[in-house]
Each structure stands twice: as C-alpha cells, then as structure tokens.
C-alpha cells in the first residue's frame, strides 16, 4: 500500500482563504463577496489586502448571488463565500437563473459542508448540495480533500471560464496532497493501486478511504483508492478503468447517498460497465449536533463503514 505521510493538519477552508489571497495578488479581476462570514471562510487576508475588491453583503445570500452574476459583466471573476447550506439550497433559483442558465463566470465557494460542521447541527449541515449543484447545466462541481488541494483548486478555478461550485469544510484534517501538485479540473487521482475493490471517494472521505484501504490490506483485501475531487465533469475513464480491473466499487462521501458522488458513479457504471457497488454516505437522514468524527461514525461515513462496504463486495467472491 502506498504511504502518504501526513504533512500537517489544517482545515480545507484555510486552503480556500490562502488560495483566494494568492489570486488577489496574481489576478486583478478576482473579486470576493461574503455574507457576514468573513472569518469563518478565512477571507480576511483578501479583505485586508484588497479592500476595493472585497464586498461585504451582509446576511443576504440571494442578493450576493445576483451581485456576483452582475459583476461578471465587465470581466470580473467573483468568488462568493458563505456556508454550503446558504450557498446552495437557500439560493438555488438565484444560481439557476442568474448564474447557471446565464453562463456567468461566478465561483460559488462553500464552507462548512456536511456533517463535519459539527456542533451547529442539522440546520447547517447540508448533505444535499452536491446533488443540487451537479443537476444544474453549465455547473462544475468540485470537492477537494485537504488544505493543499483546496488551495490549488481555488487558484485553478479562476482560470476556468464558467460557473463553479467549490465545496470545502470546517474541521482540521490531515494534509497529504503535495503542496506543488497542480489541480486539474475533471481529472481523478489514483492514490493507491489495488486489485480486489475500488474505493472512489471525495472530500474529507478521501483520507478516511486511505485509512480504510490500510485496514483492508491487513485483512488481505487489495483496495484501489481514487480521489474524485471533481464530481462534475466526472472523470469517467478513471472510474471505468478501475471498475474493469477490480469488478467492485465503493463510493464514499460526506453527503446523502442519493444524488451525490455515488449516484454519479453508479450512472456511469450502469451505462458502460455494470459493476457491483456499495455506497458510503448518509442514508436519507438529517444530521445532529456532535463532534465531527462522532457524527461521521454515527451516520455511516467513518473508516469502518468504508471497510465494511468493501468487505461486503469482496467476501462473497471468496
């Protein structure tokens, strides 16, 4: 099993904040809008360094999406910042009409996604956002896995013309993606080669899946691990190649299993290469208050859940 040394521990939202600050220095067209969560989104560095290009919107997310759409007219590249819940469900129609249908170059940057928001509870723990966003024509959907990848993704999306949903989170998680690794939108990353089962993961569940692969190795199961940081457009080639090799696929995400990464992967496999699958994610439930890892375990998104899903696919084959 390939070793991934932990380079440190940081929150992915800091990767966004640091990436945005770097963009401020390199791209004069980048502007940022925030709906009263500047500290939570780690946008302070950008705000302090580029006050003329930072727009405080107050607690008015619908207006923020419209403003961002308008600012693209004239060549600005707006990055909006608020929690994932308020970046998607709350403003779905604004995104749909003013941004996606209108093909506006807006980057919707969403923090505190999923269960790992923790103690604030289910009102804020959106688990449906990937589904909402990937359904929209013209929308690119990205969910990076650690600080380095989130920073690289933030920088990369400024050069991609079109609406993007960038999803990241609150807790400090292990950093293992090399700092200098370029971010390629739509290109999955093969993290570990294996032969018995493929684990396809996104976001915080990528590291959990690497840990699961280690446990599986101890049990004599060889797991291939793929990081799908871009859910749309989906890297179908890497998925089909791996499924053809292992004949068993587990998806892992901090999201509802209906409508998220698992659904997207299942759709590709069902059409081109029907493969037995298991889905690690939240199964038609709302979350609750608690610590991030407690919640991941309780709602079926822990390391043990990935291990069990892989075993369930591999064991019957003997």
């Amino acid at each position, binding site marked *: 099993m390939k070793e991934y040394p932990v380079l440190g521990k940081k929150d992915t939202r800091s990767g966004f904040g640091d990436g945005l600050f770097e963009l401020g220095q390199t791209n004069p067209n980048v*502007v940022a809008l925030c709906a009263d969560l500047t500290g939570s989104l780690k946008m302070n560095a950008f705000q302090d360094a580029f006050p*003329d*290009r930072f*727009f405080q*919107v*107050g607690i*008015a997310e*619908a*207006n*923020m*999406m*419209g*403003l*961002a*759409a*308008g*600012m*693209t*007219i*004239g*060549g*600005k590249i*707006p990055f909006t910042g608020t929690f994932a819940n308020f970046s998607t469900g709350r403003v779905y*129609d*604004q995104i*749909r*009409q*003013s941004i996606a*249908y*209108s*093909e*506006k170059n807006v980057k919707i940057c969403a923090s505190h996604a999923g269960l790992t928001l923790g103690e604030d509870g289910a009102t804020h723990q959106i688990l449906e956002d990937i589904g909402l966003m990937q359904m929209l024509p013209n929308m690119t959907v990205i969910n990076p896995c650690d600080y380095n990848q989130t920073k690289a993704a933030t920088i990369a999306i400024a050069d991609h013309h079109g609406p993007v949903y960038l999803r990241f989170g609150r807790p400090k998680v292990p950093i293992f993606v090399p700092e200098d690794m370029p971010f390629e939108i739509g290109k999955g990353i093969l993290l570990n080669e294996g032969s018995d089962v493929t684990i396809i993961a996104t976001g915080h569940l990528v590291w959990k899946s690497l840990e699961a692969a280690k446990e599986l190795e101890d049990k004599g199961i060889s797991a291939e691990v793929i990081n799908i940081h871009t859910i749309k457009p989906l890297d179908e080639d890497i998925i089909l190649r791996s499924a053809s090799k292992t004949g068993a696929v587990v998806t892992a995400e901090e999201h509802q299993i209906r409508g998220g990464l698992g659904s997207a992967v299942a759709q590709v496999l069902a059409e081109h290469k029907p493969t037995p699958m298991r889905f690690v994610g939240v199964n038609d439930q709302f979350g609750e208050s608690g610590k991030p890892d407690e919640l991941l375990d309780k709602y079926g998104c822990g390391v043990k859940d990935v291990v069990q899903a892989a075993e369930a696919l591999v064991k019957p084959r003997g």
Partner: protein
Amino acid sequence: MESTEKLQQIASQVRRDIVRMVHGAASGHPGGSLGCTDFFVALYFDVMHTKAPVFNMDGEGEDLFFLSNGHISPVWYSTLARRGFFPVGELATFRKIESRLQGHPATEEGLPGIRVASGSLGQGLSVAIGAAQAKKLNKDDRFVYSLHGDGELQEGQIWEAAMYAAHHKVDNIISTIDFNGQQIDGAVENVMNLGDLRAKWEAFGWQVHQMYGHSIDDIRRIVAEARDACGKGKPQMILMTTEMGKGVDFMEGTHKWHGVAPDDEQLAQALHQLEETLGDY
C-alpha cells in the same frame, strides 16, 4: 436628440409588434409590454448611450440595461430589433421552437442585447447593482439602468439589494419601477399592498423620482434628472406610473391582459388602433 414625434412613431410600431408577436405565439404578456413601450423607446432611442447596433456582453464604455420583470420580453425584443441589434424579421419567432426570443429573456442562444436571464422575479436589481460596481472597478463612468415590476417588489431579494446599494453608495445605477398597479391575481393593493413606495425607497437610502410613463418628454426629463443626481453617493429610483395595456383600449387598465394573447378578431381590433409607422415585420 430624437424628436418627440419620431419617438412616438417608433412606439406605435413597437406596440404593433407586441400584439402581433403575442398573437403569433398565442401566448405572452401584452399588458405590461404595452405599458412600458414609451419608456423602452425613450431609453433605447434617446436616453442611453450604447454602441447599437453592435452588442458586447461586457458593455465597456456603454450604458447597460437590465430587465428584471422578464415577462414583458415582447417590448424589449421589439425595441432591440427596431434599434438594429438583430433582424426585425426574427420577432416572428417569439416563443417558438429554436428561437433566440425565448418566452423570458435568456443569454443561452446569444440574442444581442440580453446580458442575463430574467423571469423568475426579484433577481434583476442585484445583477444590475453588481454590474454597476464592476463599472466602478473598471473606471467606466457610464450608467446602469434597470426596470422592475411593481408586483415584483413583493420579492424579498429586491429589498436586500436596495439596502446593499445604499450601503455601498452605488451611485451609478438608475432603476425604474413600472407602477401599473396590477399583477396576475388582481390589483396590487388587493394582492399584497406595497404601501408608500416613495417612503419605502427613501427609507432604504435611495433618491426617488417620479414620472408619467406615457409622456416621452416627461421620461426624458426625469431620467436626465436622475442621471444628473448620480455620482453623489446615492442610488437612483424612478417610480413610473403607467397604464397596463396602454394603446389598445380594451387592454387598458386591467390585469386581465397580463398574460393572455389576443385572438384574430382582437388582433385586428388592436392593430386598427396602432399606426404602422416603420413597417411590420
């Protein structure tokens, strides 16, 4: 500056276009379109500085216009075509399959003149304010105009945007409310009363002007007044009194023609009241 008489002639032709388009599609929104015709003609043929008939999405060095109440697309399409942005003959495709003239304005097919989709109400003011701020960042001293329905003010996003524009001193935007007092379910005051609109906008930090939307001269004078008031830290709002269905007697002053197409007989009756000045499409 175009003569008032010339603009009135154009308006008559635009009104003919509107009723013919809606009749041709057997659907659409004639009432609000007819009510805003004089405003559109004054704006596009006199008030606004554009590079017509050339259209650029970014509109650098040009005045921009955003239609927030997208259902009155017929008046916008006709005005844009008559101004030369696209062939007048294309008006015949309104609301038909494979047309750039969608039921509600859209950018997807690249219709010149349209910069953002609208139709789902309440979103256009935010977009217009964003575009106005981009102009400031680009040191572009032209203006941004937007139009909104009165019923549309029932959407909360409008007031989020209103608060924002005043707070951020967006003083290069001139917005107009089409105050015809009607919405789909009846009179605005019965459906959801807007109260004292002047007081509301003033309380939200806007400078408010009022005009009569069927006097070309009044429109030119008041819009110029609002433009002169720009650059002093306040967004500008014009409350424009109009009559829904203006120009076609049986459509005037009632919400019944908000979203209904005339039949053959009604079309003939309407066209009889509207002089063909520039040639029908």
